């Protein structure tokens, strides 16, 4: 950004370029190698996984780990459950966060301000801290062992609410006033004018929320009891916790379980990278 002048690069600039690029690619290696090694290993047949000397590429590449993972566990079921959880929670999170964020940004009642502080408090005191009483509440509500028990408590998120709040603060009040003068009701102004404006935030939060819920582990583990309702993370963790870890199946299952997120990220990359998520939490 600073070097937008088109003068020929000074020798100092060249060394800077060299070092910055070198350090960056070193870090790329550090961050990428674990995943790469993991991916390449997942294509090795079970016998080759532990045979020394280790090789980067398999001599007899196979997808047996994947097919085994898919068939020996109820993987399709886990996949479906996780998908339902992630989609439902994401949809609800967006609706709730958009509405609440808008209210926090555009109305000035004392109880709105008080509620802002309450929402902020939920970032400080996350669900893990009230794990056992939260479980009791969910059980007493009769939701134990249902998909709803995983979805509903996770709908309220401070990050999502504040992302919307911050966005709506940047929308000029004149727009709201104009709509009021035109006789538009408050809720219809929100639905027809404000919500469509916030599309980039909706996209960003959708990716975030999907990732959170797809990767959740401890909460689904606690509220789900029936193996038919397990999510992918519980399924994978059960392979890890087995007496003898079947690495071939574990690698295949792990890679399969992260495919959807990688795809979603690649599609929505630009929204994620431009997300100004910290703006909301600054004050």
């Amino acid at each position: 950004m600073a070097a937008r002048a088109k003068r020929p690069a000074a020798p100092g600039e060249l060394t800077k370029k060299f070092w910055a690029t070198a350090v960056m690619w070193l870090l790329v290696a550090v961050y990428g190698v674990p995943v790469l090694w993991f991916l390449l290993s997942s294509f090795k047949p079970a016998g080759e996984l532990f045979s020394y000397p280790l090789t980067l590429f398999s001599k007899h590449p196979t997808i047996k780990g994947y097919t085994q993972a898919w068939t020996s566990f109820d993987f399709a079921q886990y996949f479906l459950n996780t998908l339902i959880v992630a989609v439902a929670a994401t949809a609800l999170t967006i609706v709730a966060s958009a509405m609440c964020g808008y209210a926090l940004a555009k109305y000035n009642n004392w109880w709105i301000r008080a509620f802002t502080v309450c929402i902020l408090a939920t970032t400080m005191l996350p669900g893990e801290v009230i794990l056992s009483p939260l479980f009791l509440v969910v059980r007493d509500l009769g939701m134990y062992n249902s998909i709803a028990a995983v979805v509903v408590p996770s709908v309220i998120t401070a990050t999502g609410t504040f992302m919307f709040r911050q966005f709506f603060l940047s929308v000029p009040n004149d727009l709201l006033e104009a709509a009021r003068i035109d006789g538009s009701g408050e809720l219809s102004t929100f639905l027809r004018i404000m919500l469509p404006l916030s599309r980039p935030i909706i996209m960003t939060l959708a990716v975030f929320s999907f990732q959170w819920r797809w990767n959740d582990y401890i909460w689904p583990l606690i509220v789900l009891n029936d193996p038919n309702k397990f999510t992918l993370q519980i399924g994978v963790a059960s392979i890890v916790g087995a007496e003898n870890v079947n690495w071939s199946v574990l690698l295949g299952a792990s890679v399969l379980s992260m495919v959807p997120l990688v795809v979603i990220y690649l599609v929505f990359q630009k929204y994620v990278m431009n997300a100004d998520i910290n703006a909301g939490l600054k004050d």
Partner: protein
Amino acid sequence: MVDSIRPTASEPSPEVRRGPEPVRPRQRNGRRKRYTGAPLVLISINLLLFVTFFVWPAITGLMYSFTSYTGVGPAPWVGLDNYQRLLQDDAFYAALIRTLVYTAGVVPLTIVLSLGTAVLLTSPYAKGKTIARIVFFLPWLISPIIAGVIWRWLFGENFGLVNYLITSLGGKEVAWQSNGNLSLIVVIIAAAWGGTAFNMLLFVAALKNVPTAYYEAASLDGAGSWAKFRRITLPAIAPTTFIVVLLSILHSMKEYALIKAINDGGPGSTNNLLVQYIYTKGFERAQIGYASAASFVLMLILMIVAIIQLVMNRRKES
């Protein structure tokens, strides 16, 4: 300041001049008061969820922490007994100290890595940022459970790539799984690796907002890169750094899934962290009352961390 002077200066004059004029501000006030229905509807979902899944469990949890409730049947009142037992429980202290050590290891490492990657991704000098961005982001997509599997696979004692490389270079196999301290180090590395992307995102947004004019002015004064980074960049992104430190501490204090997948708090129970301790007591041994007491100690620690940071931030700003 200017805004507050204007209305008081202009309001009295129309009131004196004409009769119907003052209706306007009053009507405006009246209308503003009317907006209780809409905001109430808008926050209703969050309010309901907040009360049900936050206030209610927090209050019942606090109450249960004074009982020996097991999840079913009666909840006999035991007063501060749970807290006293907790303070005498070596396993709790061990978990608490391990959690603090873990946090002290993860947070600085995460901050350095996420700030470093963010600076590189916004730097005009680094080449190949498109690929780098995707690679740096990959760990965020990978769940803690899978990340645990990946690092367990890399650091396996007699099958892992790391030990293979060490032995190929003539070293001795390192006991990454059976030595408590070494296995904690593996978890710390894995956590920093997994925690970088999100914080990097926060830093990238902050770095993009630093006015380039500052750097240009500093360049004219002959400031070097490091001086510019220390004198301009760091102060400018301080609010974000504050958030990142706070969120990272809160996050690592409640780590569970990652350590579960890497070594299940092992070897033995050496690396049990607080949430794992709470989980074991509450859900495996059904000591809900006792686990609630442990939860409230964790909550107290998190609140103290948050308050200390807020106070420090205030002081720095003033």
